[in-house]
């Protein structure tokens, strides 16, 4: 039995493909299939209800001079630039802090409840935050007052609307990143820290010369995930600002969506989403290194 592998090399070679077949089949059918579908449809005039009519690259030509599209593209990138660094830094800092306090009751509690915002639907999070910010609630007004901010002004200002959406998104997904970074942190052997302590290294020193380098693969993963989620931000925007004021918080997803269903111009919407795919692909290829097996190992 033991040397079966040598006797029947064919079976051993086929097995791994069988294992990855189900998920590959699902993703290829639904996701890749849809992307291909959207590429095809982007060359048509399509209102969803009647058959698509081929019209060449007209949609893409139109995109080039569409002011709303340019604005949405800028907002999309702006949201990524806003969310990704903050989410990553805050995520790591909070995780380190929670891991350090993991044996205290409050630490355990905090570690559990920080995941609660992840559980709730993004649309619900949007509605609740809109009510909190606009509801004239004394506690909330006082808290924001500490920073000289009037909460009910935030969502209506073209300059702060997108930033506010970004902040709520960071709040919403923090628990997710805490889980990811905590796993990475727990995988760092305690002996490293003990050795550093013997050498007289302080906490900050330990963080910078042990935690950060060893956590690097996890951080890269975190950056990748937070880019993916910030590019896809939809329900939050929809419920916080509706894309306003004056499209100041309209992203490509929001714009494509409203074109597709609001105006019944699905072909054009597909052209918008294809541009989004290109942006996403470019972003992803920039981080290709993290995909390599060796660098992405947690421990």
């Amino acid at each position: 039995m033991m040397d079966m592998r040598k006797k029947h090399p064919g079976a051993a070679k086929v097995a791994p493909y069988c294992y990855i077949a189900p998920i590959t089949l699902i993703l290829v059918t639904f996701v890749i299939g849809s992307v291909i579908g959207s590429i095809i449809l982007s060359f048509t005039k399509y209102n969803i209800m009647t058959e698509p009519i081929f019209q060449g690259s007209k949609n893409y030509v139109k995109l080039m001079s569409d002011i709303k599209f340019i604005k949405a593209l800028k907002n999309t990138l702006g949201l990524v630039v806003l969310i990704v660094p903050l989410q990553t830094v805050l995520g790591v800092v909070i995780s380190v802090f929670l891991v350090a306090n993991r044996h205290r009751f409050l630490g355990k509690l905090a570690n559990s409840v920080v995941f609660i915002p992840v559980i709730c639907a993004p649309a619900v999070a949007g509605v609740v935050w809109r009510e909190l910010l606009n509801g004239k609630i004394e506690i909330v007004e006082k808290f924001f007052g500490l920073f000289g901010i009037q909460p009910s002004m935030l969502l209506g200002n073209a300059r702060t609307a997108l930033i506010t959406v970004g902040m709520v998104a960071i709040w919403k997904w923090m628990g997710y990143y805490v889980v990811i970074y905590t796993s990475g942190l727990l995988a760092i052997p305690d002996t490293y820290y003990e050795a550093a302590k013997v050498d007289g290294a302080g906490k900050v020193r330990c963080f910078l010369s042990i935690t950060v380098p060893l956590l690097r693969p996890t951080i890269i993963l975190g950056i990748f995930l937070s880019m993916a989620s910030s590019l896809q931000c939809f329900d939050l925007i929809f419920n916080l600002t509706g894309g306003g004021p004056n499209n100041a918080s309209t992203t490509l997803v929001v714009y494509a969506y409203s074109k597709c269903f609001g105006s019944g111009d699905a072909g054009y919407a597909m052209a918008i989403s294809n541009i989004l795919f290109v942006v996403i692909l470019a972003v992803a290829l920039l981080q290709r290194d993290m995909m390599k097996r060796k660098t992405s190992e947690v421990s």
Partner: protein
Amino acid sequence: MKKKLLSMLLITAMSVTFTAGCGGSGNDTAKTEDGAASGSGSSESGEKVLDVWVPPLDDDTVNNWGGLMGDWEEENGCKVNITVVPWDKYEETYTTALNSGEGPDVGYMYNEMFPTYIDAGAVTDMSGYVTDEDKAGYKYLANGFMMDGQYGWPLVTGVPFVLYYNEEILADLDESAPETWEDFERICKAATKDTDGDGEIDQFGYACGMSTSDVGAMQILNAYYYSALWQNGGQIYEDDLKKVAFADEAGTEAVTWLKDMTQYMNPDFMSLSWSDAFATVFGEGKAAFGVYRSSQTDGTVFAETYPDVKWDFVTSLKNKGFGTFGATDCLTLMSAAEDQDLAMDFIKYVTGAAFMEQYHAKCPGAALTNSEPYVGDEKMEKIYTDDLDKWHGLQVGPCGVDILTQLSADFQGIMSGELSVKDGLKEAEDYANDLLAEYWADKE
């Protein structure tokens, strides 16, 4: 060897079971449902079925509205199958269902929705079914006439956005109900002040909310923009629908005036939605004026909701003329309906006086026909009598959603001070005219 094979078989079996397992149970439901859902075809028992899609008309539509269908069902030997389509993602549901042929026989649409569906041939022109009797009986039938056809049959209407005022604030200022733009402006100016002497303004002239979060981009136009535009004699489209007219002199003047009013609004007016602004600013007695979608029961509801506010309302101010927006939501005869006559009979039945009287007894609403009596608070009755001509629906034109969405965005930009009135309207106008030029070029 055997083990290898076995393991591989297991994997395949596993994935198949997953697929089949989920599929099987799905199929069962689909099958039991087939009969009821195959449009106006017949179910197993040979009984006809009419599929009707409506949004939530009240908080229990299926029982309140659907519960009154019994007589019609019996008379026609046809079962009415009501599906409530949520307002969230409303168009999504219609377009995808029409694509897969799962759409209803009778649908329900609001004005701005129509052009897309008319162009796609999804809704039928009901002109041929309109009798003289209908013309005389139905009050708002004209509102369902758009793009050269009777595509809509009004079902819910008569709840225009009207201007509420706080009687106490006005009395303090020795003012009475405003009639003109000048009255309005004067009162707004006087009302915007610090009442408790802490140096902060805490009472405003006009409670407004111009955020488009979740209520959709059109709502701020419905609540604030159309009234100013129409009262100043402007309109959205030119009469031939080939160009837009909202950026002409009248339109510019109207927006300039509204922009001027922002100094008397609650400072966070860009963050709130129109309904939140009414509830949290006007409803708390902190503003002289507020705009809200009226209802026959406002007298009762407001007494409970805003017990401390003494209020009254004017349907419309007057500048060059009167005007404020009252939505008309219509039932539609879908082209996919197999038995068009039957579907039409149903539409007339549920909009008829006898049916509506019963329904409005449960869930108050405006009368659709001349013979249906007014039910509701006395205070609100003038909307349907003296003021009937002061409010109306929207001019329906091609590319409506795109044009109005862009206009709404530019309107926000103007109100927040990001754009000048001229630049904002110009941007919306150019955008709209480009779309219209393309639309009419395609038609030729």
